């Protein structure tokens, strides 16, 4: 159907049999009435546009959290038939009263902090190289190459690390082949193997914000600093780093939050001394069977702790940015 025909169909001047589906729809009375009602004012347009994203956030993001909060405040869940459910905060108190749970909790936060720092240190040079030293036409190709491992799922990539670091894995085989070791080094089931796995899995979330921040940085600023006698380190410390702090902030926030919630990777790559809080929480849902409210309460505690730390970190970054501007 030509444009004219569409327009005529929209005005209802084309016989329905001559119009396409969209043309017929546009000419359909109830549709036209609804369209005029919803677009009558900017306010209505805004409501129409906002309603689906809001519904999405409420049902897909906040819904599960609210449900988890509700479960955490009940004395039993799932409730056995004929049993009455009561509200309680005992599951939250359990965490604060029993030091047993503090160790995996703080271990998780420390691990997440350390792994976030390691990811930053490892990916910053990669992002810098990509953004500053690779020609624009090759950048996409290199980015694509870096993205390839992320086309497969978390579990597959975790198993890849296991194949790499196992006693009969590639790393030990190479070390043995070069005669550097007689017996395999037990990399697996340690905080090292867990760290390698988490850094590998989260690297992209750090790399992309850093790359984005570095790419926007005008080269002229560094050139001006060089003209004024600043050496390479000084230029990085006084120009590049402060101006990419937003990318660092976004990347660190993403990686830290993701790291605090990892479950499968610590289970598969970690050892007896690396139990993280997600495993403790899962224990309530999987093993204990009847203790979902405790698991839910612990999940909420972890969520709030991670949010508080992230907020403090963001505040620190803002202060650094402001300090730099003054």
């Amino acid at each position: 159907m030509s444009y004219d025909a569409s327009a005529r169909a929209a005005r209802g001047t084309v016989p329905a049999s001559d119009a396409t589906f969209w043309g017929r729809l546009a000419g359909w009375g109830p549709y036209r009435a609804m369209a005029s009602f919803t677009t009558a004012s900017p306010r209505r347009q805004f409501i129409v546009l906002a309603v689906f994203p809001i519904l999405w956030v409420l049902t897909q993001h906040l819904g599960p959290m609210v449900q988890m909060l509700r479960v955490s405040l009940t004395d039993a869940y799932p409730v056995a038939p004929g049993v009455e459910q009561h509200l309680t905060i005992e599951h939250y108190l359990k965490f604060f009263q029993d030091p047993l749970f503090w160790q995996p909790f703080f271990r998780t936060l420390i691990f997440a902090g350390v792994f976030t720092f390691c990811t930053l240190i490892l990916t910053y040079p990669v992002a810098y190289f990509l953004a500053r030293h690779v020609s624009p036409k090759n950048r996409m190709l290199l980015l694509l190459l870096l993205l390839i491992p992320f086309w497969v799922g978390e579990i597959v990539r975790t198993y890849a690390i296991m194949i790499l670091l196992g006693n009969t894995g590639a790393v030990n085989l190479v070390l043995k082949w070069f005669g550097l070791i007689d017996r395999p080094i037990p990399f697996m089931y340690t905080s090292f193997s867990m760290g390698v796995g988490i850094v590998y899995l989260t690297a992209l979330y750090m790399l992309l914000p850093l790359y984005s921040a570095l790419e926007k940085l005008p080269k002229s600023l560094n050139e001006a600093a060089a003209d004024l006698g600043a050496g390479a380190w000084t230029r990085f410390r006084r120009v590049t780093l402060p101006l990419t702090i937003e990318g660092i902030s976004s990347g660190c926030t993403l990686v830290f939050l993701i790291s605090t919630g990892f479950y499968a990777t610590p289970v598969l790559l970690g050892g007896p001394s690396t139990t993280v809080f997600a495993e403790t929480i899962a224990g309530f849902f999987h093993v204990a069977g009847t203790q979902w409210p405790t698991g839910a309460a612990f999940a909420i505690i972890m969520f709030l702790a991670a949010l508080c730390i992230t907020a403090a970190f963001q505040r620190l970054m803002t202060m650094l940015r402001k300090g730099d501007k003054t």
Partner: protein
Amino acid sequence: MTKLILNRRKFLSTTAAAGATLASPAYLRRAHAQQGGEVNIWTYNDFVPEAFKEQFQDETGIKVNVRLVDDQGKQFSLLAAEAPNPTVDIMTVAGHRFLQFIDSDLLAPLDLDRLTSWGNINPTFSESDWSTINGEKWGAPILSGMEVLAYNSDVVTAEEAQTWDTLFSDQYAGQNAYIIQDMMSIVMLMMGYDGNMVAYLDDPEKAAQIVEEAKNFLIENKPKVRKFYDGGAEFQQMMVNQDIVLGHSWNGPAAALINDGFPLGMTIPQEGSYGFVYTYNIAKNCPNPDNAYTFLNAILGSPEIGAAMTKASGFISTYKDSSQYLTDLEKKSTSFPDEQLANLQFFRSEANEMKYGLVDPAVEAIKAA
């Protein structure tokens, strides 16, 4: 051993099992007209032989939907969340976990009048004391397993493997693995206590003291363990990758490795160990009860199917005469000397509430320590 050999052997054994099952008497053809619909099953990997499943679907028109589970507690939680209108028809509950499910009103007692294949189960399992609760049968035994000490026979000697102490020895520090929850019962047994805790039902203080003792033992020995694992596949993987040379294991995954040609041995150590029986159970208010009984009658219908389950899972079949369909190696990997079997006792459920009330926090403490 390479992955290629593993796969080839697995393929050959699976093909043989499939052939045997397909060549089996046409039980289904005799017993069932095409009735259609579906049956939803929660079970462990390899507990529904693929060839049987296809034959069953072809001959009854009932679609078999299998959802894999790897943990009894997880299965309990899922079912409890769906109660009183579950989506599952048949689950796989270990005999010693019956009470937890029954107390929560999640299982339906079996109607033996409808379960015409019940007589095909070895009475050792179908009529044992744990299988009857409140005067009812709650599950059809399909496979039997036990907690064993499995070891790489190229590194650890059969003599060393006669005691659980080897698992905690300095010699094999960093080369061992176990499931903490299961080890708690075994450690209690090692210390001369009743790991089922039935003996302490009237003495909760004593029970708490024993669990504390076992917990402290495992915390003390924690620096020597390479990995606390959760599932049989993890154990197999660590063995094949030579990350460990010995460990506590269920006999099923260990037998599967032996059948694949891995140099693995397994024993029931002299201090003793625990056995368990997996059963197929019908969920209370399940959506397809007729199809569930049709499925149970079919899968219990012939010893070849029991043998196929043993070949795939490594666990010991509870079916009468199923061993005649196993190869010599398969028989060897699923049998133990009489003197070792004498050390075996079954898990019991009478004290589960008290036991797991004490053991679950202890497990968390060991992990956290």
